[in-house]
């Protein structure tokens, strides 16, 4: 199974980067989201995957008696997901605002701040 997830992760990274390289702002945001998803999946996979054993101690037990999934990557991903959500919402609104002030979606036209004689 790991091998399939590896492919998916590679695909997410590739797609994310491809979208980030586009000139359209909306695509850029989508690229960032894909990249974020890729990173989360990567943490998940690299924390090693275990099927059907959530890290929740049974109601009658005080600690785990059998194998269970590593809770740390899950906690990390949770934090990462939430953080990305915050950043992504901001980025989406930023794009909206940019579109409003610049009247274009073409990132190539948003280059005045890089001009030397500005």
């Amino acid at each position, binding site marked *: 199974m790991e091998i399939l997830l590896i492919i998916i992760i590679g695909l997410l990274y590739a797609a994310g980067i491809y979208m980030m390289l586009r000139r359209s702002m909306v695509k850029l945001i989508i690229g960032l989201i894909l990249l974020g998803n890729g990173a989360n999946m*990567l943490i998940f996979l690299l924390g090693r995957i275990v099927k059907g054993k959530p890290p929740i101690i049974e109601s009658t037990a005080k600690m785990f008696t059998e194998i269970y999934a590593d809770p*740390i990557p899950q906690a990390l991903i949770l934090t990462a997901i939430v953080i990305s959500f915050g950043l992504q919402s901001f980025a989406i609104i930023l794009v909206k*605002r940019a579109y409003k002030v*610049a009247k274009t979606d073409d990132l190539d036209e*948003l280059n*005045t*701040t890089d001009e030397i004689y500005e």
Partner: protein
Amino acid sequence: MNNPYIVLPIIFQLFTAILLMFFWLNVNAQRLISGIFSLISLGISIWLFSEIWQNGILISQAGGWQAPFGITFVADVFSATMVLLTSIAGFAVAIFSAGSIRNARLKFGYFPILHFLLMGLNGAFLTGDIFNLYVWFEIIIIASFVLITLGGEKSQIEGAIKYVTLNLLASAIFLTAIAILYGLVGSLNMADLSIQIAEVENRGLVNVTAILFLIGFGIKSAIFPLYFWLPASYHTPPPAISAIFAGLLTKVGVYALLRIFTLIFIPDEFLSNLLIGLAALTILSGGLGALLQVNMRKMFSYLIICHIGFLIAGLGMYTELALVGALFYLIHDIIVKTNLFLVAGLIFKLKGTLNIEKLGGFYRQFPKFSLLMAIPLFSLVGIPPLSGFWAKLYLIQAGYLSGQYVLIGFILLGSFITLWVIAKLWAEVFWKPDVSIPKKIGVKYFYEIKPLKRWAMVLPVILLGITSLYIGFFAEHIIVLSKHISADLMNPQNYIDAVLGAKPLTP
């Protein structure tokens, strides 16, 4: 030694931010709270620094969980110094903002976010946990996103698009690196990682991970060829904001590089050479860019890049001496760059533009300001014995001792370009006769501002000016400090022992 209170610099800033949010529309209360609490925060940082200077490394195991199980906060001299510098710069900018930021922005959370940013910075400097570092970095970047866009002007938004995209890319790379690190050794505590990474047999993987960290932090530090976001954006927000950015944001990236590459990944020859090469090109790119600019803040932005090269050069050479140079420069740079952008802010408030071709006549019109502004300008150049000078001695000497002659050449070139750029700026802005600039609508000029607020803008410049003079004239103090830090960095065993304590090492 465990001391729960070392997290105070973080918590206190957060508390300040929360308090400020309760005064959402009361801008004057916000000004007051921000100023007073920044001062208290400065006091806390001084306490922290003196505590560590006397007692050595202090740690706090958050939640009372023994490392590496919880999040450990570690205050060594390096961290405490960075926190102290952050507080100084933060205090200066808070006061400056009270004078210069217009109510419109203050009513949209400027001060809370500034304190969130300071919290993130302190957190990044104090944490001993790699994922927690990621979290602090995210706080820093989101706070900086908001600050850079606050106001929503066209140029701000344009700059922000690049700033946001590339910083998010950096975060993604950083996160990827953490994923691999965790997948490799199953730990997040930096001290623990230091031990465990050394034991990993597959060095190839370790090297690759190091590259990911290098790029992730490299983007944030604005090194070549990853710096593009910086010149595109730093000149767009109100000056108080770019001041705090200039002083601290890239530096936190450099801090992370210094930390990671002395504690977890010890550079091999390839990495060391790579860093040196990048340092040289960073210096070159920043310098060349600065030569061309007519907008003062853009000029300074490129100079930030140029001088980041000095810091990376110190890391690349990887000797205790070289690190002393880099650390001294870091300390100097935080104070001076913050001040420079504040000066730019002052100039803008006086004249309504930052285009050096249009500016002029400061020498005649504002002789006292000119003198005040000369301090950061010439400190930046490193006119001896001002603060920028001493670090270069160490960098050059370290360069000789490690045979990096070309790098020395670049350091000198960078210094020369800085000299030239600042001299040109001086000639244009201060010497050149005043050309009357039409009054700009929307700008509240210095002379239109109430005296108290005027002082709020001048006082930080004086404060930072004095600090940089102190660094220059009492360089010995800073060198002793840098040497202490450098020795700590080169021999991380103390750090590791302090964090992991009596815990038996992993088999």
